[in-house]
């Protein structure tokens, strides 16, 4: 099964529960099979299957709950104190646990775009297909997501300092 392990990892990040992630991957496979005729040659298979997984997630109970809290994409996440001091403090403290908890606390649409871009290393075009949004939206969302991520990491590292 192509991308089985990656899909499972992505599902866990989205849904936050291993058993629920298993169901999600399983459901995705079934839908992929049923929808195989809708898979168009020339479109990106990886983007296609991630899109199925994500849409399945969004219509699940957890997904509905996760998105219900997202009235606006501009949320009250802390803005980075300053973007001018990247290197020194932050990098040292970018430990896995800090990044993981930052990712976990990002709203779902920020989290998924970062996962697709940084973890799955998809191109903007693939992400646009996977999320079903235009490239411009991918870019602006990714930019805001990373800003939010840096904000969280800055806040975390300043918390440590104090």
């Amino acid at each position, binding site marked *: *099964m192509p991308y089985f392990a990656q899909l499972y990892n992505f599902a866990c990040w989205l849904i936050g529960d291993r058993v629920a992630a298993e169901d999600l991957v399983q459901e995705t496979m079934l839908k992929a*099979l049923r929808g195989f005729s809708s898979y168009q040659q020339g479109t990106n298979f990886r983007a296609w299957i991630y899109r199925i997984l994500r849409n399945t997630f969004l219509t699940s109970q957890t997904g509905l709950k996760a998105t219900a809290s997202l009235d606006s994409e501009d949320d009250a996440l802390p803005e980075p104190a300053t973007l001018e001091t990247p290197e020194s403090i932050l990098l040292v403290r*970018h430990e896995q646990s800090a990044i993981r908890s930052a*990712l976990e606390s990002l709203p779902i649409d920020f989290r998924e775009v970062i996962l697709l*871009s940084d973890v799955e290393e998809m*191109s903007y075009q693939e992400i646009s297909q996977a999320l079903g949004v235009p490239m411009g939206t991918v870019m602006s969302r990714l930019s805001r997501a990373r800003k939010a991520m840096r904000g969280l990491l800055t806040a975390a590292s300043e918390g440590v300092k104090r």
Partner: protein
Amino acid sequence: MTCDTWRERLDAYIDDSFPPEELNQLEEHLRVCPSCAAEALHRLKLKHATKAAAAARFAPSSEFRSRIAQGMPSRRKRLFGDLWIPGLAVAAAILIALAGSSVWEWHAQRQQALAELVDLHVTTLASVNPVDVISTDRHTVKPWFQGKLPFSFNLPELENSPFRLLGGKLVYFNHAPGAQLLCASGKHQISVFILQGDWKFALSGTFPASAREKGFNIESTRSADLRILLVSDANPGDIHELAELLKAAQQP
């Protein structure tokens, strides 16, 4: 452009999605602006750190893997009786079969081939000596390839066309030798790859007629057993026009 304008676009840069035609300008700025360079580096490091922290963090258990392969339902559903999902085993089997052979592999190969072509084009443009035979004359360029390639091809007369031949060189693509010709169309350069069309994905005729990869336009056409691939940042219409000239030249 100001630092702020560049910064807004640094994400595209670290994601390898920066428009190639503006890349030089950005990299020039990064060379002279330590602050933007530090910011770019920082973002790149964060991208890598994110991958390290989040990729493969959750691995499917072997129990789940085998359950999928055998078409058994999830644990939770099994609490309500021994349900068996017939479709699931079939889905797994079909997806696994496909994974091993046709569609995905072909797809992956094709993506890889497109990326490889773009890399060859970019490397050529970046090179101090982009071509091995420098000539605008097809009667010089064509014979240069004789004896170097296991096949032959014709070059069209470009005299009255908007294109200029700049030269050519040998390339290896998919472990087979081919010709790379460099042409100019206005300010744009176009790489033309002439290859023997016997690679797996080309056989099926499924190589896309046109595609976009890393900001470059790619056009593919064939004539007899030759496959002609064009890569450029020129607009697709111009690329297509050159492709048609090349194709026509192969007709006896």
